[in-house]
């Protein structure tokens, strides 16, 4: 098991350095240098520019800049935002809980609906119910989620007026946020109605972000179940007279879930990409919106830092999924 774990970690190290190289090159590949962007229309005197470039280390040779950059990463220094003058890592840490809360709600929604839908479709294979569930899943899988979000806003916020259009909580509430997770903080604050307001703000973005993972999980669960339901041990379980619920729930589902777990792990990238769109539509103050805003206001140190941190999260989650997969399925470990 340790060999397996170290093997996976060993694969991750070159990828990590590759990712740092991408983030490092990003700023240097942009047209114009960062100071011109910072100075904007007013321009900047050549002496002052040289001084600032030296201060930021841009006058050193490239390899030296890269080494300094990587050394900085290990000390938690990801640069400073032009716009807010705050360290990028601090900004990320402040905004990340908002995205994490949204992504967690979305994935919980996707798993809780997707797995039962997939099982149901597999058990009723070929029926109208199966076709309806899988047809819906394919529509979800094909959905341009930015449009889906707008449609839900038109219906639930515009016509029915059930949910708010944007933000994480109503402006009426103001309380300290020790965890950054609005659902928890609003409960802790004890303010009346705060929790309900947080929930109402969270519903539409979660549905939008959950749409594609939900469809993927439902499709994957169905095909994994179909494969397992044809196996000999399931036939044996049926033949010895076990009730269908325990054949499906105990014998089939446990084995079918293995590929599904991997699929769920792979959704992290989908969720973070989806967060970029979902947060933009719902003005959700998370890292997705932060990155899009930073790209459009050319705050490139933020984009560089954000790229690195997001890739780091995805790599970490993939590693955890890999290891979990190895734990569940010994065949993978020894290959």
């Amino acid at each position, binding site marked *: 098991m340790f060999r397996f774990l170290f093997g996976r970690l060993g694969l991750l190290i070159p990828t990590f350095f*590759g*990712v740092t190289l991408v983030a490092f090159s990003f700023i240097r590949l942009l047209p114009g240098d960062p100071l011109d962007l910072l100075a904007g229309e007013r321009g900047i005197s050549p002496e002052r520019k040289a001084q600032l470039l030296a201060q930021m280390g841009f006058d050193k040779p490239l390899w030296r800049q890269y080494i300094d950059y990587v050394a900085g990463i290990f000390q938690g220094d990801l640069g400073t935002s032009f716009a807010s003058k705050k360290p990028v890592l601090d900004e990320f840490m402040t905004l990340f809980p908002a995205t994490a809360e949204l992504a967690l709600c979305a994935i919980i929604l996707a798993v809780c609906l997707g797995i039962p839908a997939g099982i149901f479709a597999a058990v009723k294979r070929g029926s109208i119910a199966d076709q309806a569930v899988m047809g819906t899943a394919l529509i979800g899988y094909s*959905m341009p989620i930015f*449009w889906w979000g707008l*449609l839900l806003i038109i219906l639930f916020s515009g016509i029915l007026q059930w949910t708010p259009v944007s933000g994480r909580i109503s402006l009426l509430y103001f309380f300290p946020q020790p965890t950054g997770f609005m659902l928890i903080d609003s409960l802790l604050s004890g303010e009346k109605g705060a929790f309900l307001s947080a929930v109402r703000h969270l519903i539409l973005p979660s549905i939008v972000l959950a749409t594609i993972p939900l469809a993927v999980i439902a499709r994957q669960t169905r095909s994994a179940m179909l494969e397992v339901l044809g196996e000999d041990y399931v036939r044996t379980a049926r033949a010895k007279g076990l009730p269908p619920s325990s054949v499906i729930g105990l014998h089939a589902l446990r084995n079918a879930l293995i590929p599904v777990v991997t699929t769920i792990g792979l959704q992290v990238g989908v969720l973070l*990409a989806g967060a970029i769109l979902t947060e933009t539509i719902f003005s959700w103050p998370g890292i997705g919106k932060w990155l899009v805003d930073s790209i459009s206001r050319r705050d490139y140190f933020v984009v560089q830092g954000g*790229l690195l941190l*997001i*890739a780091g999260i995805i790599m970490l989650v993939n590693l955890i999924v890999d290891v979990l997969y190895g734990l569940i399925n010994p065949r993978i470990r020894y290959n």
Partner: protein
Amino acid sequence: MTNTSPVTKADKARLEAESRNATKAQLYEFWYYFSQNKGAVVGLIVFSLLVLMAVFAPLVAPHNPDIQYRDSFLVPPVWEEGGKAAFLLGTDAVGRDMLSRLIFGARFSLFIGVVVVSIALVGGVVLGLIAGYVRGTVDTFIMRIMDIILAFPSLLLALVLVAILGPGLINAMIAIALVLQPHFVRLTRAAVMSERSRDYVIAAKVAGAGHFRLMFKTILPNCVAPLIVQATLSFSNAILDAAALGFLGMGAQPPTPEWGTMLAEAREFILRAWWVVTFPGLAILITVLAINLVGDGLRDALDPKLKRS
């Protein structure tokens, strides 16, 4: 010994005829399994209609997509109160006919799909073939680079690439192709690795085939099935990603009638004029859905494992 040559010639003709028949039989078999999936057939019909609509857009569209009718801002669709028969699906905020813009938009979406998939497919297949065939350091190098690309969410990487290259449709397509490429590399590499030790490859090698021939003529044709399915999926992903980039203002720029860009322009009218928001998105959904239906059908028809179940 002298009479072997005519026999060989006859044999050759017979073999050629057999191979033609085999290809025909394979096509029949493929169509049989594909047409079993009713959804796939519907998808194919819708997709064909979209292609026809895109090709003949100037003939089909009732108006020029860029002309602004100054007396008709935000006219609702014809069946709504205040709708005009001249504008079946209404007009947008500057008085352009929605239907015509949607029809011309099909050109952009399908063009994006074709270009992106072509770049990603060719690049991915070449890299995957090299990685799987040569192995060793080259393989490790190529695969690590692909791992790096896959470590980023595709839309984020595309956004960042567009920030470097500058916003616009062509740059968006390059960025999306680059992001989709690793899937083709991985698939090709896996297929090549399973094929390269097969008897027919070794036979070709013994017969003196060079590396180039072995890679492209002997091995590649036997790895095509998963690539076709992946190409279909990438086609729909490319359309979705390009529309998302357009929506975020980093793809096609206004006044291009690209569906994602149209949605971005329509956003501020979301609670006033539902049609400017609804139709472009519906167009994206229908196109992507049709392609995904075809993709599912192709997978069913090409995957022998599923055929038997």
